[in-house]
């Protein structure tokens, strides 16, 4: 479903801040894969997401989504294949627009936008039903401005928006990191539900090792723009945080220094 072939991305080339963010990076996802991604700061996790989403162009390599080479496509053109949820709850929604208007914008992802009505009565009913999945009571607040919602509510809504049109690939970029633990757990539960329901191919970055182990069928760890660990199948099911730390030390030759990721 997704194929990243030998992608390289260098930020600020030729300056003292030059940073090799993705180093000849390759990754292949089969349809229905749910891959969790961990790694320290600057490991290249978000860079990998942004390369797939086309936020900027990559310096070398190819990105193929469902057989189509999207390497040269601009961000808005790739959007038809991708559902995205960002770390910052502010990024995924339009604060000055209503809940239903945000959903209607997402509903038209990958379609032409013309002079037809921006939202129809039929859609409103559909969204009302859909919002019930979240269990946040948003179905009673269809016309409320999204800016009035809490971070957790906005992330849950963004998740719904990202999957309203079934994406070829769902990109979750630390989408629970900015939430309090209870809300984060709730959003993660909803994520799991939606991904299973629609059998979505998913790439989820998290800085929480427990979450990375508990979810998905494959786990990758990034360091210095490369994959240093790739655990899947039965091995992934039996994995514990301790195993993961040992594997990390063996693979990288250094101790894992991020308490937050270990303690979760």
């Amino acid at each position: 479903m997704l194929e990243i072939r030998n992608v390289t991305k260098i930020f600020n080339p030729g300056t003292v801040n030059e940073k090799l963010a993705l180093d000849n990076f390759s990754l292949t996802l089969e349809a229905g894969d749910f891959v969790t991604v961990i790694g320290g700061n600057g490991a290249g996790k978000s860079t990998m997401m942004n390369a797939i989403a086309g936020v900027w162009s990559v310096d070398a390599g190819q990105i193929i989504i469902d057989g189509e080479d999207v390497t040269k496509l601009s961000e808005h053109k790739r959007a038809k294949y991708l559902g995205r949820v960002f770390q910052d709850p502010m990024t995924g929604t339009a604060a000055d627009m209503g809940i239903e208007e945000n959903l209607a914008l997402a509903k038209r992802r990958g379609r032409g936008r013309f002079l037809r009505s921006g939202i129809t009565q039929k859609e409103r009913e559909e969204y009302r039903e859909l919002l019930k999945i979240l269990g946040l009571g948003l179905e009673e607040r269809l016309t409320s401005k999204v800016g009035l919602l809490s971070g957790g509510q906005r992330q849950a809504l963004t998740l719904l928006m990202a999957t309203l049109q079934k994406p070829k690939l769902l990109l979750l970029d630390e989408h629970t990191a900015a939430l309090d633990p209870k809300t984060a757990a709730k959003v993660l539960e909803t994520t799991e539900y939606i991904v299973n329901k629609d059998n979505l191919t998913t790439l989820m970055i998290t800085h929480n090792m427990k979450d990375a182990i508990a979810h998905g069928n494959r786990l990758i760890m990034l360091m210095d723009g490369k994959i240093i660990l790739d655990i899947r199948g039965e091995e992934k099911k039996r994995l514990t945080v301790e195993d993961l730390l040992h594997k990390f030390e063996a693979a990288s030759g250094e101790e894992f220094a991020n308490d937050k990721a270990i303690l979760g």
Partner: protein
Amino acid sequence: MNILDLINAMPGVFAQGLIWGITAIGIYITYRILDFADLTVDGSLCTGGAVCIMMMLSGYNVFISMLAATGAGMLTGLATGLFHTFMGIDPILSGILSQLALWSVNLMIMGKANQAISVDKYSLLVSLRYIKDVPVYKNTILVVAVCVVLLVLILYWFFGTEFGCAIRATGCNGDMARAQGINTNFTKVVALMISNGLVGLSGALLAQYQGFSDVNMGRGAIVIGLAAVIIGEAVFGKIFRNFGLKLIGVALGSIIYYIVIQIVIWLGAPTNSLKLFTAVIVAIFLAIPYWKEKYFTKPAVKKGGGGHA
């Protein structure tokens, strides 16, 4: 300081305020909806006036001329939009570049700095002379009011369409818009074109109203328009929630602005100081939200467990 002088001036003030109200609605679209401070306006207002007057002087019908003025305004918006999206120039500078270029373009259109049109020889849609002692249907205030209402209805419909929503999303959150597959460069250019089309139309009405187009007629237009937007929101913000009513509020804000200016003139302020007065008022109004936040908000309470997630 005869109060009757002031009262007698009011119908003219209303007409002028409403005509500028169309400019203000154009500015509302860029400044509030697109979140793009577009300085093209200072040039495109005159472009609209110049095109309208020159076409009428060459014998074209007033409606054709006004349509052409609107089209010319849209082209100025296209120029600014391309400076920004295609050439990567920052919004303010894109507008300033267009504004500067339009100075020359406007002179080229008119052939000189000022072109007059006689209300007696040409059938104008609006004029200073059509304020009093004319049949109701010819009254400039009514004609412009009908124009404003029609424009607001069209804009209300448009910003409710799929494409209109895409423009609103672009202004509200560009990252989100692109993630939803919206070509934000395209929506920005179209919004700038609509905005400056309205400004061009407003310039065409203004030139007819005052009986001439002048290369200086747009100077400070952006600030006057912003004043109207800000006054409209301050006065009607609490009662006008609906988008269409907000636009009406902006047009009314423009009328209030001209009433205030008229009172200031009536009180004996030198007309040379009016732009200074306007600039100070707008600066203060723009500062109010900032001051509110800085001096009158209690320290924000931190949310949740702060990063334990």
